[in-house]
């Protein structure tokens, strides 16, 4: 058999299968963000589950400097010592049912999960650090979660100017770079630990776009001082009671983008971290809401 015979055979797929896919193809494009959000929450569980499965030491709040922020004294304690983002339980696998898996890979014992936005060019790529195999799927056994394994294959690189313990990139054939971040097995106390230490947004912020949660149309915020407030805001355990009101997309001059969700009451979550929220004080929250409503009107 050769690949052309395979291609010819694919031409004889059942009409019912083609019709099913055709409906998707013909559907009016919609923003993938709402689905992505739900997916990310599920995928994060899988990613973290995969990590703890492969690396049993995960799950214990770290005591060294490898972790962002100060060490937590208890999982999701919400105390001043921070919120520990623990590895979740390994998802149960039901025979014959495929899980919705996010792209992830394991490097130096850390589990890197994809961000929702890609870098538009490869200019930021640094040195190649290793490669991962696409060997992990929903049926992979525990011994398959090894160093260098992942749900995606390719060579991963450092990103120039960014700490490789936080961010790595894999170039795509489209010329873009898929960004991955190590967003689990860490303790968070303040927003700056992600916004500044990981993404350097305190120095490199080029703008903030805002949109209604369920809209793909965004407009720039003219006043970006809310970032200062987010830097010093404290994380607390979070279980989203409903959909957020707004989405904030933070842009850097280097092309990195990070999505935040803003909920009623001044709670802000970072993409991929559904179980921790920054809390703005009431005055700042009201001011930010008024500003958002002003620019969106």
């Amino acid at each position, binding site marked *: *058999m050769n690949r052309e015979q395979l291609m010819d055979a694919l*031409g004889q*797929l*059942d*009409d019912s299968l083609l019709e099913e896919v055709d409906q998707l193809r013909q*559907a009016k494009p919609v923003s993938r963000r709402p689905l992505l959000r739900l997916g990310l929450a599920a995928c994060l569980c899988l990613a973290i589950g995969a990590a703890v499965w492969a690396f049993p030491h995960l799950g214990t709040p770290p005591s060294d400097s490898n972790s962002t922020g100060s060490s937590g004294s208890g999982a999701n304690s919400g105390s001043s010592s921070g919120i520990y983002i623990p590895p979740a339980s390994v998802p149960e696998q039901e025979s014959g049912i495929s899980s919705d898996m996010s792209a992830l890979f394991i490097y130096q014992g850390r589990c890197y999960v994809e961000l929702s936005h*890609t870098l538009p060019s490869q200019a930021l790529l640094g040195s190649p650090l290793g490669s991962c195999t696409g060997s992990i799927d929903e049926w992979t056994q525990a011994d398959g979660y090894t160093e260098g394994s992942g*749900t995606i*294959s390719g060579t991963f690189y450092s990103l120039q100017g960014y700490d490789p313990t936080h961010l790595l990139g894999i170039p795509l054939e489209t010329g873009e770079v898929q960004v991955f971040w190590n967003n689990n097995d860490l303790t968070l106390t303040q927003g700056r630990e992600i916004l500044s230490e990981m993404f350097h947004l305190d120095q490199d912020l080029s703008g903030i776009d805002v949109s209604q949660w369920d809209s793909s149309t965004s407009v720039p915020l003219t006043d970006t001082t809310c970032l200062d407030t987010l830097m010093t805001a404290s994380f607390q355990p979070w279980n989203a009671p409903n959909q957020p009101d707004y989405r904030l997309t933070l842009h850097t001059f280097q092309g990195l983008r990070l999505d935040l969700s803003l909920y009623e009451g001044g709670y802000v979550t970072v993409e991929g971290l559904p179980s921790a929220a920054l809390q703005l004080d009431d005055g700042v929250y009201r001011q930010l809401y008024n500003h958002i409503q002003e620019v969106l009107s």
Partner: protein
Amino acid sequence: MKDRDIVALYWQRDQEAIWHTQEKYHPYLMKIARGILGSEEDSQESVNDTYFKAWNAMPPHRPTVLSTFLGKITRQVSIDLWRRRNSWKRQGTEYALCLDELTQCTVSDPQEEVDAQLLAQTINRFVSQLSPQARALFVGRYFYCDSLKEVASYCHMSQGKAKSILFRTRNRLRNYLIEEGFQP
């Protein structure tokens, strides 16, 4: 006009059938042809051939879903046309990329003849067993030859994730073909 009315025109040998087909499905068919051929001129030729073949196929065929019936014709006509072109023109189309990717799935001597019907049935079974998400990606990429960006978009996921799922699906197809006896 509804598909069944267009098909009825074909059966009545009314040439209005082709006009209505063109009006309803020309952009759809051109999209498939472009993915395989790249060139606008060749794609137009391929779609014109599709209308001719549809005219000859109905009767005896009476498709219930005209889009997939015509889409299959366009796909095969475009592939045949692609194969007739010189190798230097075989670059840069989604079809060429799809072929490269499917090399991962081939499991035996490239020269070996296989039972095309058996292979088609096997692939049908494989695709039917995929999750809806993986199926949409796989069929979109390898039947319709949509770009990675397009399949990721209408499946509402990042290109990285789509690429990852496609990679794993191709690996599964290879293993499935081996299990089903397509071995060297």
